[in-house]
């Protein structure tokens, strides 16, 4: 139910923002060349990302996240769980067939908060009043007839007849009769998520600050993330150091191509995650195993990228270099390698992405430190705020790696796509 409300709200906000921003910015569009294009549907170059939409999109995520977790960062919230005093009356019948009414009073309190039970006044008749405490989001079993004498049983709640398995709605909750005649009182839960399912944004921030200051599981946050990055870099560098020469050899020699083609083509579609069990059997769960795994993840991607880079050299460039008197070594150094750099960079970006994903997965399986270890350890203790913080950091680092690779590419291969 909460999911459907969330989706409906998200769609509503999407549409409202689109219409709203459209109205506000009408007449203030840019008057550049693209604005004069009449055909924009299907012209990819005319589709420019609306940056206002990007900003609102991120804000909406935090707004909904806050609204559904009772966060203090958002002004509005969906209804939360009922907290406070409540009660209902029930009718009991004793063995002699007499009927009597009694009251049940309860206090719903946030879990972890110490509260006192409401004062009990037993009342008149054989059915005595009851009191109890219920944690928010929880339910509580009330054996209301326990103090009502031998053979008494509940026949109605708030005047409505009730039988085992049936539910009666009361103010701010429901009462369900169990097969054994007890009353299960479930206060209204509202639509907010409990912290162990989805913590509020500020809890995630607090977890981040706490771990940044105090560390987690014997290692600082910097060490956890740093170790993941070191593993990725080590695996990637080794994979590139072997894969690029291998790819060049495959691109330059028929024998190498023929020899390694079956191996590379077979290994390429094997997901690195599928290699984790074998790598653990062979190399153990420590650093060697992880670096071997990442090496294998990067190796085939880099080999294929380098091979494609060599195949992609325009033959006229090679011919030109030969007729300018260049030797084979000079052609490799001055023509083939620079010409394959764009392909190698594309491969490197893919490989870094795959390695980052693989290292997190490998750390989920077994590790003492690392981003993946941090979130799997936290999940075992239901520390959802740390899990979410870890996922956000993993995402940010992966995004950061890609941005750095792109910057390096622009700097080192400025001619890419312009020949």
């Amino acid at each position, binding site marked *: 139910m909460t999911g459907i409300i969330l989706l409906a709200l998200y769609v509503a906000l999407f549409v409202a923002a689109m219409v709203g921003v459209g109205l506000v910015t009408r007449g203030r569009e840019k008057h550049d060349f693209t604005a004069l294009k009449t055909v924009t549907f299907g012209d990819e170059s005319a589709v420019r990302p609306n940056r206002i939409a990007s900003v609102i999109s991120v804000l909406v995520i935090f707004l909904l996240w806050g609204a559904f977790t009772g966060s203090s960062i958002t002004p509005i919230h969906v209804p939360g769980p009922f907290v406070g005093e409540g009660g209902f009356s029930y009718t009991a019948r004793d063995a002699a067939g007499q009927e009597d009414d009694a009251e049940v009073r309860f206090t719903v309190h946030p879990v972890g908060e110490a509260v006192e039970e409401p004062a009990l006044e037993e009342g008149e008749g054989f059915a005595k009043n009851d009191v109890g405490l219920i944690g928010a989001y929880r339910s509580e079993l009330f054996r209301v007839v326990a103090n009502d004498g031998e053979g008494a049983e509940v026949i109605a709640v708030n005047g409505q007849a009730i039988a085992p398995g049936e539910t009666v709605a009361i103010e701010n909750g429901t009462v369900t009769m169990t097969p054994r005649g007890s009353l299960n009182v479930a206060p209204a839960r509202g639509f907010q998520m409990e912290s162990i399912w989805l913590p509020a944004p500020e809890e995630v921030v607090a977890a981040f600050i706490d771990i940044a200051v105090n560390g987690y599981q014997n290692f600082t946050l910097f060490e956890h993330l740093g170790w993941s990055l070191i593993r990725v870099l080590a695996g990637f560098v080794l994979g590139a150091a072997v894969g690029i020469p291998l790819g060049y050899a495959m691109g330059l020699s028929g024998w190498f191509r023929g020899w390694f083609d079956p191996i590379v083509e077979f290994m390429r579609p094997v997901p690195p995650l599928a290699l984790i069990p074998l790598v653990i059997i062979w190399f153990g769960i420590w650093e060697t195993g992880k670096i071997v795994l990442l090496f294998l993840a990067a190796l085939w991607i880099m080999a294929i990228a380098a091979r494609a880079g060599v195949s992609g050299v325009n033959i006229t460039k090679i*011919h030109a270099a030969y007729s300018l008197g260049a030797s084979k070594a000079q052609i490799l150094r001055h023509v083939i390698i620079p010409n394959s750099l764009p392909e190698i960079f594309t491969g490197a970006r893919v490989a870094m992405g795959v390695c980052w994903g693989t290292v997190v997965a490998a750390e989920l399986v077994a590790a003492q430190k690392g981003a993946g270890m941090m979130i799997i350890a936290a999940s075992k203790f239901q520390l959802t705020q740390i899990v979410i913080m870890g996922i956000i950091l993993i995402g940010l680092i992966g995004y950061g790696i890609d941005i750095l690779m792109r910057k390096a590419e622009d700097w080192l291969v400025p001619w890419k796509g*312009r020949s």
Partner: protein
Amino acid sequence: MTGLSIESISMRFDLPNGGHVQALQDVTLSLREGELMSVLGPSGCGKTTLLNIVAGFLAPTEGVLTLNGHRITGPDAERGMVFQQGALFEWMSVRDNVEFGPRMKGMDVNQRREKSDHLLDITGLQDFKEKAIYELSGGMQQRVALARCLANDPDVILMDEPLGALDALTREKMQGLVLKLWKETGKTIILITHSVEEALLLGERLIVMAPRPGRIHREYRLPFAEAGVDADLREVKKMPDFGVKREEILSMIWEMEEEIMGRTENA
């Protein structure tokens, strides 16, 4: 013996389906030093194959090629090549492209800088020396290709439709530049083209090749290249003989094309 000599070259290779192609049959030619020869012919007549054999990229199945008395067995700096497009190195500046040949030979920096400065000046690229290749227009890129080839000081320059990808106006300017460079450097040049006008303008000698098998069909000796060195090329084109020759060669090639079409349709 100086000059380029091509003796009874044939080129025949097998196809995967069991057939074979006779790309060239018994081509014999000799060029003296400093000669400018253009080669014309319908598509599939083997003119690019011939050029690639002279460049040393392909080996003929029969016949011998010699340059200044020694056999041609592979590519070498003595035979420079100018391609239609895509042969420049995008990762180098204009200057580095021009200096590529001398640098590979190990010429020292100052010498090759002097050389590239001179060549970039005479090709009209003095203001673009440090630009990246992708910042230049197609015409300017071909000027770089010419300068790069000349920087290596080859004995023979082979041009494979060097102006084919340029627009008409740029092409005309570049034709003037080719003539100017030919006269100034005195290089032996073989130029392949699709354009009859260009072949007439840029050939002391003009060879028309015929297809299937590729062979020399006719040879002309023409005055237009010599005339074009000093005169406006548009004036050269107005010479009465120019028009006559153009029509003659056009109809010759036209007939060959018709014949090819007919043969394919009957096959």
